[in-house]
């Protein structure tokens, strides 16, 4: 079984995770192809966030294998660092660095991890700010920006390392309704640009428009997956049908 099937960028096989005695992930297996956009949805506590956090080792899995772009995810720090430089993550609470300006937040990683010069890093940061639509906010501090603007800076920060995979952990759940659209627009643009994305989200409209595949999690297990058409029009499992009926109203 070759680990270098170049089209499969993430391979997760029988992943288990326990928090003490609580079995959070129960044998999750999933494969992601390059350029695919996958939306993971499900009730709270179903393990969706835990699962994507195991992909960049913010959480450790106790059993099973995870292979990201041909590199196995284990306790070897070199592997972890290599994987983290290819995987970008956007958090529900933004997690911008409050003591740095928007520009410095974005330029930080290229400057210190890729060891670019300040000019090169700042130039790239400005390009990314333009890409997410807020170049004029470059010198503002996070507390001077609205939630939608902060999240867009967070997306630009994750893109600064030119990752192959972008993970989104409920990126719009902490936003006021009028700002959700501006962030989803940026994510839609990103999806269309061909980058591999995994999004944990409740935004079904976004999923329908952009996802190649939707995955339903419940109770730490992957219950069902399919294209948006299959999931919305013809859900197979009872739990999927129940959850969809609760959120689509």
């Amino acid at each position, binding site marked *: 079984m070759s680990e270098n099937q170049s089209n499969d960028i993430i391979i997760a096989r029988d992943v288990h995770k326990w928090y003490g005695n609580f079995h959070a992930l129960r044998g999750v297996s999933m494969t992601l192809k390059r350029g695919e956009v996958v939306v993971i949805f499900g009730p709270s506590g179903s393990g969706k966030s835990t699962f994507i956090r195991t992909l960049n080792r*913010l959480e450790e899995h106790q059993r099973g294998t995870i292979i990201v772009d041909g590199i196995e995810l284990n306790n070897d720090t070199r592997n972890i*660092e290599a994987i983290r*430089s290819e995987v970008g993550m956007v958090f529900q609470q933004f*997690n*911008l660095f409050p*003591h740095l300006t928007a520009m410095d937040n974005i330029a*930080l990683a290229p400057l210190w*991890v890729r060891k670019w010069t300040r000019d090169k890093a700042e130039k790239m940061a400005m390009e990314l700010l333009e890409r997410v639509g807020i170049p004029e906010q470059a010198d503002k*501090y996070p507390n001077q920006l609205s939630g939608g603007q902060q999240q867009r800076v967070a997306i630009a920060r994750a893109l600064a*390392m030119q990752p192959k995979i972008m993970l989104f952990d409920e990126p719009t759940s902490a936003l006021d309704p009028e700002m959700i659209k501006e962030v989803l627009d940026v994510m839609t643009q990103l999806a269309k640009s061909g980058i591999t994305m995994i999004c944990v989200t409740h935004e079904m409209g976004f999923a329908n428009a952009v996802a190649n595949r939707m995955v339903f999690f419940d109770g730490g297990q992957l219950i069902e997956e399919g294209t948006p058409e299959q999931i919305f029009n013809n859900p197979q499992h009872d739990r999927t049908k129940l959850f969809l009926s609760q959120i689509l109203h």
Partner: protein
Amino acid sequence: MSGMATITDTIKPPVTSVGVLGWLRKNLFSSWFNSLLTIVALWLIYNFVVGLWGFVTTANWNVVIVNLRLFMVGRYTLEQVWRVQVSVAILAFLLGASWRAWGGIIQQIGISIAALFVVLALLAFETSSRVYLAANVALIAIGFGFAHLVRSRGLLVALWIASPFVIAILLYGGVGGLPIVATDLWGGLLLTFALAVSGIVLSFPLGVLLALGRQSSYPVIKWFSILYIEIVRGVPLVTMLFTAQIVLPIFLPEGMTVERVVRVMVGFTAFTAAYLAEVVRGGLQAIGRGQSEAAKAIGLNTIQILWLIVLPQAIRVVIPAIVQQFISLFKDTSLVAIVGLLDLAGIANSVISQKEFLGLQNEVLVFIAAIYFVCCYVMTYASRRLEKRLGVGER
């Protein structure tokens, strides 16, 4: 015409609710009780100021004037006092240069120190002192000009790093033909500053390392840090100084002796570091997990996460507590009397007990109280400006 108000007409608020009158009315005279408090407070303040002024103008300040050198440098060899004056001049120069290079809070500190020198020059009695103080103000200006011409912050940082070594050698001697002035002879304000500055500068990195060690995942480092912090915090500073005095020579190789002043410097540093460690630990706990998670996610390693993300935020949050430790340290230097050294307070004590100045305690005590107050106030002022500049509480 409907009942809608037009928003274009600007109506001014009534006179007595804004401006100086409004403030007085709202804050000092808002109720009977408040007004009564205001009157009592004004009466107390008046009495205090009049009393203080009366004391200052009628007191016999001779005791301070005659012993000024003792207060300033203790029993430092008379012919070598110029070395202390040169050290102060070096610092004045560097201050002026830093003012130009960085501005911001250094500008405020520069203005305060320059103003202080000017006030002292006006109060001074001897012409030589006035000239010296004026020269220091001039040196601040010269440093300013120097930095203006030589625009290199890197050079300034290098000079600052070199300065403690240069000044230490200058004050102690033994190099370049300078006769040695044993640290036992150092006293007064010179000793207070030497102990406080060395304690502050050395305890800070040690305290941060201990705080990080306490959180370490390596059990040896963690338990060593915890033991150190708990033991040192359980012991009074006086005991620490005494112990440093007696115990330190045991740890040194045969035949090597260490001066008393160095031993108490070690004592002060070790003591303050333990307290700072707990203060910094509080700051570290205040920084949410999300910060280090986001830093990990963009690929920073552990040291980078500490240096770039976590420590700047943690320390910023606890600046008031850190400055509090430093101010305490500054005043606790008076405890060196226990090992027989004479700092500012120690000199004050010995001056008071001199036969010819019997009964003049008030003058001496007010004098050193004023010095301690000015130094501590400069520290609190600088810390307030620093907090404002770093946006504490805002971002």
